[in-house]
């Protein structure tokens, strides 16, 4: 029966996607009062948010902090979440990207000498389990990270959501709260700004 109904791969994909969406909708609807439902969402998205935060910060501890803040914020705001075209993932990534920006803002406010040392410890603390290949491209990544940090927050978020999160363009746009064409414009400008910043760093060095 099912082979007749689902004769094409595309149809099957659509059915799976639809099933996944309805399943996730049900979980989200129950999550603010049902620990098991929230736990399911948490386990589904924690690795993705962690990867996103780690790529952006290069620090396991910072990534863990951002994860904790993201899920705590999500839990508190869940009752106001309304399912839209993007679904749950872009909403969660939007929180994560804001928390990442807030992380850098806080780090930038570090003023005391001891605080500076603590911040240095935080950013230099790498997990021994970190992907060696990932960090072996360290210089390029550090330059990209440093240049990205210098952009305005909107551009930082656009680039991070488009490239460092496992979101497609439509989802990244949704996470930014923009329509796809508007997001493309922002992303183009963000990349141009990033390129200029890299050139400025090159001249400075």
């Amino acid at each position: 029966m099912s082979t007749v109904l689902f004769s094409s791969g595309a149809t099957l994909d659509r059915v799976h996607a639809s099933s996944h969406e309805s399943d996730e909708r049900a979980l989200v609807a129950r999550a603010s009062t049902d620990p098991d439902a929230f736990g399911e969402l948490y386990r589904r998205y924690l690795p993705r948010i962690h990867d996103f935060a780690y790529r952006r910060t290069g620090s396991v501890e910072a990534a863990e902090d951002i994860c904790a803040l993201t899920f705590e914020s999500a839990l508190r705001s869940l009752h106001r979440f309304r399912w839209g075209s993007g679904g749950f993932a872009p909403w969660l990534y939007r929180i994560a990207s804001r928390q990442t920006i807030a992380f850098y803002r806080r780090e930038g406010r570090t003023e005391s000498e001891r605080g500076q040392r603590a911040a240095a410890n935080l950013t230099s603390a790498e997990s021994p389990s970190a992907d060696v290949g990932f960090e072996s491209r360290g210089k390029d990544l550090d330059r990209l990270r440093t240049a990205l940090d210098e952009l305005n927050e909107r551009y930082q978020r656009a680039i991070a959501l488009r490239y460092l999160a496992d979101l497609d363009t439509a989802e990244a746009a949704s996470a930014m709260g923009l329509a796809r064409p508007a997001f493309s414009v922002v992303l183009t400008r963000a990349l141009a700004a990033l390129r200029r910043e890299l050139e400025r760093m090159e001249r400075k060095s």
Partner: protein
Amino acid sequence: MTDKRPDDLDEQLTQWGSSTPPRVDGAFANRLETSLRQEIVEGAVGADRGWLGVVFRPGVVVMAIAVLIFGFAFISRASDDVGVADGAPNEPTISSTSKEGAPETSRSDIPGPTVTTQRPDEESSSPTTGDAVDPPETSVPETLPITSEQPTDQTTIPAAETTVPVTDSTTPTTAAPLPEVVATLGTPADGQIAVRWRVGGDTSDVTGWVVVRTIGDSRQTAATVREATARRVVVDVVNRDALFRVEGRSAGGDLVVQSDDVSINRDE
């Protein structure tokens, strides 16, 4: 890098995004999930009360009443001093004559009320727009004073976890929910402990400082602060038998929340 064409930058960013970060630490994931589940069970979810909640939260109401009382007293006293019935209210009026015959004037330069301000709950005031709402970033001072001395000895502490009830709140000026310190001890095997703390699920009610203080023999330094935020403090553990406590302080330095003494040696 900079002399590369746009496609190269796109390529580099794509590679960056396709890299494989380290896996999530299982102990961290379990602790966070437990903490979040506990918040749901305790009903902390939904404490985000929106702008009405901000307006009518106890601290704001107390502050508004205080302002009204001081304001009323100020106006009332100023009215008495200037003799409202006699004419121009803002000019000093002669109210009595001294024995020496010199007129005394009453003045309206009464000092204004001292008002303590409270940090608004930013999470609660986030607007609802469209289909996805995310909370605004909190702007909490993050760099914290470090009171412990440099370590003299390093000891690996086995993983353990404990919840530390807060026993004392020395500045009960607001009716904020009781703070709670959640201490997670000996997270990795390198002698670190991580302490998470919260106030009714929302640390924005208490901002400022977190101090880890060793207790008992001052020569027995238990820990040095490695990294600290308003929500979490990570310390390097030195002496396994020492005690410590976590203090949350307001931006003005007042002690707001204090945990019980916690033994670092929690491997039982």
